[in-house]
Structures are given as C-alpha cells and as structure tokens.
C-alpha cells in the first residue's frame, strides 16, 4: 500500500537566542558571518590561519526548528541567517519581477539568506524554504495576504540589494525620548 504523504502543520520549536556575528579579514577583505550562542557577542579581533578577523557587526537573533504536529518530523534551520523583505530596489532582479507579479494578489516576497561567504557554507535547500513559507502562511491563515519565500540565490546582485532585513542591531543604545 502506498504511504500517505503528510500535510505538514508546522510549529516553531527550540527557539534559542543568540547573535549573528559579521566579521571581516583586514588582510584579504573577506567577509564571513557565523551564529554565536554566547551571552555577549565577541568583540575582540583574532587570527585564524591566514585571516585576521575584525568584528563588523553583531545582531541579536535566534535559532529554531520547525516541527510538524502531525508526523513529528523536525526540520532544523541552522543554515538560515535571516529573512528580508523585497522592496523592489533593482528592476532587473528576478526577485523584483516576482514581487511585482505577486503584489497584485497581496503576496509579499521575502528572501531567505544564508551565511557568508556564500560559496563556502552549506545553503538552505529549496524544501526547507518551502517548509518555512508554509509555516508562516499557516501562522497567518486568518490573514487576507500571504507571503512567498525565495532563496537569496535568486537575487541578481546581493551586494546592491536594499531589501529590508529583519534584524536587531544596536538595541543596547536605544533610549526613550525625554518627557
């Protein structure tokens, strides 16, 4: 008998706070980023083989997994650095074409991006991106709009991309206005 395919109903589990550290080697100018569970983001420069890494930015974020409440499959998202919303900065970009097409039906386009350098780290596969999109659309099922998530590999030129990144930077410097 053919096994029935589960129609996954996702829930977010194992939400763990941490930091995304972006660093740059002042010798070869390579940029790299990684996730840290440390209580405070590391700030010191250090040497690793030929590289001399300096911290450029740290952003508060979290790691999570998705679990299907029906079949209990668990999908980790260790390769996901974050999500950003396409705002249409480059009319030659495929993501912008998709945004224009989907905006008519109130579907907003988000880009799932991974760690740097892009060609040296494991990338988020298409199935995981689809699962993440399903999760957010299931969570907003009472809504009149939807979201579409695509891979950052679809962006024409990521260095010139002005999508709105969902990240928490510089929160420690926030002050309420004086009354």
């Amino acid at each position, binding site marked *: 008998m053919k096994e029935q395919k589960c129609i996954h109903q996702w829930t977010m589990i194992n939400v763990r706070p941490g930091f995304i550290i972006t660093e740059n080697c002042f010798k070869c100018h390579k940029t790299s980023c990684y996730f840290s569970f440390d209580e405070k983001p590391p700030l010191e420069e250090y040497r690793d083989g030929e590289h001399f890494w300096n911290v450029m930015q740290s952003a508060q974020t979290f790691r999570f997994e998705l679990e299907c409440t029906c079949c209990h499959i668990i999908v980790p998202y260790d390769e996901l650095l974050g*999500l950003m*919303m396409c705002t249409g900065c480059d009319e030659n970009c495929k993501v912008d074409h998709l945004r224009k097409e989907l905006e008519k039906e109130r579907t907003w386009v988000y880009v799932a991006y991974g760690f740097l350098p892009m060609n040296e780290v494991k990338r988020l596969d298409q199935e995981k991106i689809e699962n993440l999109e399903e999760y957010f659309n299931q969570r907003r099922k009472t809504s009149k709009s939807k979201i579409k998530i695509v891979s950052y590999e679809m962006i024409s030129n990521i260095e010139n991309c002005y999508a709105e990144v969902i990240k928490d930077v510089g929160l420690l410097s926030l002050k309420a206005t004086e009354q």
Partner: protein
Amino acid sequence: MKLQEIIDRLALNVLTVIDERDVSGVFISDMLSDVMSSAQPGNLWLTVQSHKNIVSAANLVDISAVVVTYNKKVPEDTIELANRFHVIILSSPLSTFELATKLVEAGIK
C-alpha cells in the same frame, strides 16, 4: 475589537493610511526577532522601534498595527514603506506600560 475603536478610545496618532481591521491581542517587544518567533496575526504590536525594518517584521506575521510608544519620531521612509505594504503605524505619547494598561482596561488581552 476594531482597530478604529482602539484608535479612538486611546487617542492614538495615525501616521499611515488606515483601513478596517480587527485586533486580536497585544504583542510587546522591541526585538524584531521576537515578532518573527512569537507575534500572532491580528496583534497590536507595541514598540519603541521606528526604523523601517519594523515594516518587514510586521508584514511577515500580519500584525494588525504597530504602535510606537513614547511619541518616538517615526522617520518618513518608515511611513512611506509602511504605506506601500499596507502596514499601519500609530503612535502614542504614553509609555509602553501605560498604553498596555489602557489596552487591558479597554478589554484587549
């Protein structure tokens, strides 16, 4: 409860184009990652953040409206982006705690 009713009862300032929406619950956090992990569609999101990436976080989970507390100035580019993506931004001179108290008194939980 209807968003317009909340705006009227709490004298909230409307900074963007608004439409008719329901509000179901309140979410309080100044971290976008919290919104991504825990906010629910239809929530009223109380925050002191006013950078334009609040629009991308609010839109992802379909927040009913963002309320910027302490009368913090919301930059023009944030308002412009919010209008493009139908995200409603309101503001209040009250602190987040005072506003949350008034929301509870109004019957929103």
